[in-house]
């Protein structure tokens, strides 16, 4: 595929965004022309900018990354706009900013490449921990933590009359992946050697494990303290999988799986809001008017779409609480049907396949680990939230990459795509 074809696909995604926005606007009686033009221009401008940045600073990059991301973003923007006009308009601004962030990442790495990131490994670790701690700032300051839906993972920056809220955890995830890739690329031999024994379990020298355990511990403790189970689980999966990839030792998976199971059991036994989630997962109709309401409405919503959906504006996705964020996938399935839902899953599969392909082609250990870690980040996040809203697993509220409403998530994921593009460029150049 050439750059030109990639550009054509991005134009396609803009056409989809425009058509969907127009359809929703007409059905719902909103400003058809301005919103449609806005959607098309935003989509073209944002992904055009990233494509331009890639062409300029990572010309040999894989051509498979941007098109699926653009497609998912288009569908997500349409549905967010359909659910809430104002959120949809704000999301457009986030998309523009995210594109600038992605282009900036490519610009910063233009000369020395991703390898330069290794130098700042420890800085990244501390920055990540700092970002994760930010929401715990007391209320009343210019930069203060904020609690939303029982989880304290937001930071509000007070700018006089206005304020901006963001989730620093999204950026922290990326920094942690970079740190881990770098650390594991250096120390993998020591971690793969397992001279110690703890019963039947073989263990590396504890000294080697210390930084990783510290990083892991801080992240998980902070997240549990903030009561954000989804991000905690997500980070944990990324950690464990990267340890396994770095060392080729399946025992890390076994140990991680055991810890995860124990941690979830402990969480379910300790936190009442986790118990409520488990109940809502298994028996949403038992407490229909209470804790099961969201899950039960999601079931109704999923059943309403059929194969091709009710059509934009004709379903009732807004009846599901958090339709634009956690439950955006259910909203898409209701209005665009099983076909729309499967197309979106296929989009993620393409993206994930492209990401792992980059990891497999990379000859350098750091680049390969980084690409794999970034891809695992997006794949695990997608699966955790899809499994949650479809009741494969209990719901742990995190965003659906590129589709959910949310600036922090969109920014982080666009930076992630930029990093993947840069890695694939360096391997081919």
């Amino acid at each position: 595929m050439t750059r030109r074809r990639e550009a054509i696909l991005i134009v396609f995604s803009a056409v989809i965004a425009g058509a969907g926005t127009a359809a929703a606007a007409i059905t719902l009686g909103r400003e058809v022309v301005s919103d449609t033009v806005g959607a098309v221009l935003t989509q073209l401008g944002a992904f055009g900018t990233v494509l331009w940045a890639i062409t300029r600073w990572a010309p040999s990059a894989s051509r498979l990354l941007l098109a699926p991301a653009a497609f998912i973003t288009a569908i997500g923007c349409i549905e967010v706009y359909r659910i809430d006009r104002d959120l949809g308009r704000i999301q457009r601004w986030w998309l523009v900013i995210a594109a600038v962030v992605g282009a900036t990442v490519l610009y910063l790495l233009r000369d020395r490449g991703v390898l330069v990131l290794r130098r700042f490994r420890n800085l990244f670790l501390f920055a990540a921990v700092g970002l994760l701690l930010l929401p715990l700032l007391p209320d009343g300051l210019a930069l203060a933590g904020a609690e939303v839906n029982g989880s304290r993972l937001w930071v509000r920056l007070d700018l006089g009359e206005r304020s901006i809220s963001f989730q620093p955890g999204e950026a922290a995830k990326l920094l942690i992946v970079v740190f881990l890739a770098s650390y594991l690329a250096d120390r993998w031999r020591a971690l793969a050697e397992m001279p110690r024994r703890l019963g039947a379990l073989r263990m590396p020298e504890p000294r080697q494990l210390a930084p990783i355990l510290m990083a892991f511990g801080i992240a998980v403790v902070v997240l549990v303290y903030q009561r954000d189970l989804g991000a905690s689980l997500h980070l944990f999966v990324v950690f464990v999988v990267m340890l396994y990839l770095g060392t080729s030792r399946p025992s890390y998976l076994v140990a991680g799986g055991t810890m995860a199971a124990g941690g979830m059991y402990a969480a379910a036994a300790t936190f009442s809001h986790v118990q409520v989630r488990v109940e809502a997962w298994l028996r949403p109709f038992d407490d229909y008017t209470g804790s099961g309401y969201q899950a039960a409405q999601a079931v109704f919503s999923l059943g309403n779409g059929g194969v091709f959906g009710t059509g934009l504006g004709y379903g009732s996705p807004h009846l599901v609480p958090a339709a634009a964020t956690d439950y955006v996938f259910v909203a898409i399935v209701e209005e665009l049907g099983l076909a729309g839902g499967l197309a979106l899953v296929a989009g993620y599969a393409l993206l994930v396949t492209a990401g792992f392909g980059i990891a497999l082609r990379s000859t350098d250990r750091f680049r390969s680990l980084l690409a794999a870690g970034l891809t695992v980040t997006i794949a695990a996040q997608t699966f955790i939230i899809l499994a949650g809203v479809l009741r494969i697993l209990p719901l742990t509220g995190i965003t659906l990459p590129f589709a959910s409403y949310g600036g922090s998530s969109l920014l982080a994921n666009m930076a992630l795509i930029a990093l993947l593009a840069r890695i694939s460029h360096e391997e081919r150049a």
Partner: protein
Amino acid sequence: MKGPIRGVAATFLALLGFTAVWLTVGSSYAGSRYADDPRNTRVAVDLDGPRGRMLTADGVVLAEDDGTRRSYPRSTAYAHLVGYDDGETRTGLESTRIREMLTRDDRSLEALLVSLTGGDLGPPDLHLTVVDAVQRAAIDALGGRTGAVVAIDPTTGAILAYVSSPSFDPNTVASGARHRDDLDAATAIDRVAHRLLPPGSTFKTIVAAAALNRGTDLDTLFDDAADYTPPGGIPINNAGAGPCRDGTTITLLDAFVVSCNVVFAELAVDLGGGPIVAAAARFGFNARIPWELGNEPGVVPAAADLDADTPALAQSGIGERDVRATPLLMAMVAAAIANDGVAMAPYVVATRTAPDGTVISRYSGQSLGRVIPMATAAALTEMMRAVVVIGTGTGATVGDVAVAGKTGTAEGGGGPHAWFIGFGPTDDPRIAVAVVVEGGGSGGGVAAPIAARVIAAWRDSMG
């Protein structure tokens, strides 16, 4: 390191694949399982879509879409069976079968597959088992009197006629000309399935069945007394005041043929409450009949209460006192006897067809199990045939159809309720009928001729 990356990649892609399969199965399950859930506000809108028609077995349209509302071309004739849809409330089959008449294009995976194979997804028609010729004959024969007529195919349970009188025009309700709350309760009630009356002497079929089950036969002799006074009760007389025959003895067959109250009151006391209540319960008393428009359960008091109260037991033996039945239940009693002792659940929708005529689904009767032994059924058939040939039910005679039946004249506030239950032809019964005319007079004189006209109309419609 490449090996583990491949493994992890395969795992995550497999998880996404699993998610896709789960989504496919889960959304179509949710669509079918929760579409009817009352808490699911998403489906209410769909019920206003275009709907198919309802037609009788002989092709008469009973309900169809007419622009913005439902229209009922046969007006008052099927008000209680078909019901009405006034945009807010639905009754009758309009309520129980609405989903089956809505377009099948419900966006589901199943509908997609049907349309891909060339199927017609338009709103399906329902073809009922009722025969308009029979229904019309029943309405004409009732002639506006208060009562009910129901006819069933005893071998299948298919409803052939379903008349409740007086009736109303569902079009006036559907069009809003008359609000449903303004309907007179006496016309709105479905007297076939929701009106409980003492069954009178038609209940003797059940007492006779209980006796036959316990070894009594047609020739068993009873005292032919002029009256019978159960201990502590008031005297029970025969219809003609005096003995039923010559004042000496009388066989069970003869007592049944002339509907001898004294014999059956004494027989009930001899049998005791247990056998009678058991026989009645097997015929469907004290339980709801599986009928889609619902019904009031027939009533027979508990055996212990009857055994403790001999006058009540004696009066129950002739279908009075606290015994109650709907015409639907008594039609099923006749039908079970006609069908060699096996009861069939009543049903009224025969097939569901797409607008292009292809049959989507076909319904058939369900057996409710054996109610009486075959020998008892044969004996009762012989007794009921004699009723029509030489007994109280000669009014039910139909030229070339051998009809069997039992009359009943039950006490009622505004005059006696005239009952007749019967079936024909006796060698291969294909129609069972229950007729009641409330406060109408004697069963033999008033109800039996109505049954005759219904059965004759059925014979004519068979060609």
